[in-house]
Each structure stands twice: as structure tokens, then as C-alpha cells.
């Protein structure tokens, strides 16, 4: 630990000692670099992102590197996960014929996001990588580029714009207004909400867990022990809840990605 670092949270800071509650905030999501190359700071979330990739690849490597007709345990679990995304999301939203091509992308996306979320409650990691907007933004950007380019590839330049802007002659006079709304809604707001939905959920969840954890420690003094107990119960409850939310958010993220791709492929928007 270098000299310019201080603990955000003093271990001796408890209630009734005149020490204020060290509430978590934006600083909770900031890390000192582990190492720095030039202007590039390598931080813990980055390490977790790379480790997450290795975990996902490692798991599927163990499951699918030498697949057998009669699956082993790992393969069985891998197949269940694979089938969940393939049948449960991609085929369901895009359809089997058109969706086939996007299965690897969506499977990668789901498990990547899920593991990034899951770091939140893994001991020692204890940080959801997706609570930094850059990571959901990177993924949302890939999805955005995918569906926009797909729209123009499928419908041509004019047809692509018609598809995105929801061009429909029967709307008559309000058509320009609709097109303006669709433009903002689809091209500008959509990628933003796609990324922010995931980011905000993970951000808020992490904040809650940290808040109750800090409170548990802070309250451990005198009468405060009673409240500390309640706060600790909340840590457990929130951790369990986060486990659920992490999977749901990964699911929603991929579901929306599929829905965008499906919209790009559809004849009428």
C-alpha cells in the first residue's frame, strides 16, 4: 500500500465514539491502480473482468472441449446453460432459423455479464464489474453496432432508415413526429438505457451490500450491537437478493439484445 492511500474506513471507527458513519458513495467504486503502464491504470475491476473472461472460457472449456455423446457432469451443466440461452432466449425472441447465427454471441454475452455481476458476492472479489458504466457501455455498444449494421445490411440504406424510424405512410400528418421520436428512441436512448439498466442495478445492489456491511461494523459498540445484528441480517438478505438480481439482469440484457436484433431483421418495424 503506497503512502498516498488512506483507508476510507477506519477499523476503529464505531458508534458512540464520536466518529461519524463512513457512508459509502461514489468513492466505493473507485480503486487505486494495481499497476500503471504509462497513463494506463490497471485496477481491480479490470482484473476481475479479465478473470471473469477466464472463468467463463475455463468453464466452457472444461464442459465442451472434449464433448461426449453421453455427457459428463460438467458437460451436462454446460449444455443446460447453453440450452437455456439458445432455446430460452434466442430461439424464443428471434426464432430458430434467423436466431441460429446469433446464438454464440448471445451465449457469450449472457455468461459474461452474469459472471461480471456475480463477482459482487464472491468473497475477496466482492465487486460487480458491471457497476462501472464502462463495462455495460462496452457491451451495449457491441450490441448497438450489431443491430444497426444488421438493419442496413438487411433492408438497404433507405429501407434501413425506414425500419429504424418506423416509417408508415398510413400515419399521415403525424408521421414526421413519429419518425423524430423513433429516431431518438431507437438510436440514442436505446443503447443508453440498455447499458444504464444493467449498470444502475448492479451499482445500487453493491451500494446496499456495502452500506449494510459498513453499518454492521460501525454499530458494533455498546447498545449498537443490537442494530449491528439487524444490519448483518440485511447483509445476508441483500446478498441473496443480489444473487437473484445478477442473473435477472444478465437475462434482461441478453433478452433486449435479442429483441433489438429481431427488430433489425423484421420486415416492419
Amino acid at each position, binding site marked *: 500500500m503506497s503512502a498516498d492511500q488512506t483507508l476510507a474506513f477506519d477499523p476503529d471507527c464505531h458508534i458512540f465514539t464520536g466518529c461519524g458513519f463512513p457512508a459509502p458513495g461514489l468513492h466505493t467504486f473507485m480503486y487505486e491502480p494495481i499497476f500503471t503502464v504509462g497513463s494506463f491504470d490497471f485496477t481491480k*475491476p479490470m482484473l476481475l473482468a479479465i478473470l471473469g473472461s477466464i472463468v467463463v472460457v475455463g468453464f466452457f472449456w472444461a464442459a465442451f*472441449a472434449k464433448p461426449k455423446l453421453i455427457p459428463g457432469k460438467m458437460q451436462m451443466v454446460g449444455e443446460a446453460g447453453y440450452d437455456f440461452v439458445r432455446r430460452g432466449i434466442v430461439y424464443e425472441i428471434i426464432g430458430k432459423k434467423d436466431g441460429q447465427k446469433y446464438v*454464440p454471441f448471445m451465449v457469450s454475452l449472457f455468461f459474461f455479464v452474469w459472471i461480471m455481476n456475480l463477482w459482487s458476492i464472491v468473497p475477496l472479489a466482492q465487486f460487480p464489474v458491471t457497476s*462501472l458504466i*464502462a*463495462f455495460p457501455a462496452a457491451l451495449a455498444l457491441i450490441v448497438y453496432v450489431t443491430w444497426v449494421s444488421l438493419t442496413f445490411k438487411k433492408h438497404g440504406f433507405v429501407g434501413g432508415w425506414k425500419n429504424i424510424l418506423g416509417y408508415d405512410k398510413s400515419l399521415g400528418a403525424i408521421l414526421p413526429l413519429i419518425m423524430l421520436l423513433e429516431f431518438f428512441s431507437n438510436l440514442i436512448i436505446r443503447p443508453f438505457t440498455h447499458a444504464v439498466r444493467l449498470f444502475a442495478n448492479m451499482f445500487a445492489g453493491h451500494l446496499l451490500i456495502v452500506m449494510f456491511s459498513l453499518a454492521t461494523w460501525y454499530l458494533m459498540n455498546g447498545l449498537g450491537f443490537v442494530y449491528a445484528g439487524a444490519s448483518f441480517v440485511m447483509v445476508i438478505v441483500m446478498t441473496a437478493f443480489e444473487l437473484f438480481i445478477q442473473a435477472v439482469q444478465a437475462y434482461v440484457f441478453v433478452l433486449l439484445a435479442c429483441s433489438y436484433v429481431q427488430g433489425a431483421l423484421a420486415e416492419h418495424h
Partner: protein
Amino acid sequence: MNALLLAQGEEAQPPLIPHLDELVIGLIAFVIVFGFLAKKLLPNINKVLEERREAIEGGIEKAESAQIEAQSVLEQYKAQLAEARHEAARLRQEATEQGTAIIQEMKAEGQRQREEIIAAGHAQIEADRKAASAALRQDVGKLATDLAAKLVGESLEDHARQSRTIDRFLDELEEKAEAVR
């Protein structure tokens, strides 16, 4: 405890502005996952899933063909059984008929033999009766003549008269006997 570290002096970044370094790392991390899954691991499992599907379909086909074969064998067996039953019934019928014919034949033969024996018996009796009757006629004639001669005291040697009288007597006797019978 890293999560609880705060760099002093560093401004907290607005949470909605992506950090470029993190964005790049995020893209790299995802591309690693996508590369491995899309290029190697998912094609791997797709191949095996396809093989498994084929294996299962092949198994089903095999089972179906086995069932069809079993069915045909069963039908064959049933046909054979029916044929055998039919044959057995035919044989039984034949045996019964043959038996009946034999019994009939035997009966007819017995009847014929019986009649033959009876007829032979009748003929014998008739012959004996005739012989006895001839002998008796002769004896009775002689006895009667002798008796008459003794009674009359004279020889009734007149053969012609004598035999005429006796014959007439005997004929009368016969007529009487006929009448009685």
C-alpha cells in the same frame, strides 16, 4: 479490504461517464469469451448435440425396425400355427371318415357272411329233409306193405298196384300235413 480503499485527492468520477481504459478492457474481456465460445467450444458442442440427436433417432429407427420384424415373425408364427391346426383337424376328420368306412365295411362283410352261413344251413337242412323224406317214404311203404301182407295174408306182390296205392296214401298224408302247416 480493497473495496474500502479510497484514493485521497482524486476526484470521484461522475458515475455515468465511462472510463476509457475500463471500456477497452471490457471489450477485450468480452472478445476473449466470444472468440473461444464462437470459434471452438460452441461448434464443438453443436456437433455433439447433432450426433446425439442422430444417435437417438438411429436408436428409435432400430427399435422400430426390430418391432416390425418381431411383428412379421409373430404373424408368420400365427399363420403356421393356424395351418397346423387346420392340418390336424383335417387329419382327424379323415381318420374319423376312414374309421366309419371300415366299420361299415366290416358290418357289411359280417352281414354277408351271416347270410351265407344261414343259406348254407338252410340248404343242408333241405337236403337232409329231402333225403330223410325219401328214405322215410321208402321205409313207410315197405312197412305198410309188410303189415298189410301180414294182415291180409297174401302177398301183395303186384308191384304196380302196390306202389300206386302207397303213393296215393302218402300223398294224402302229405296233403294233410300241408293243410296243417
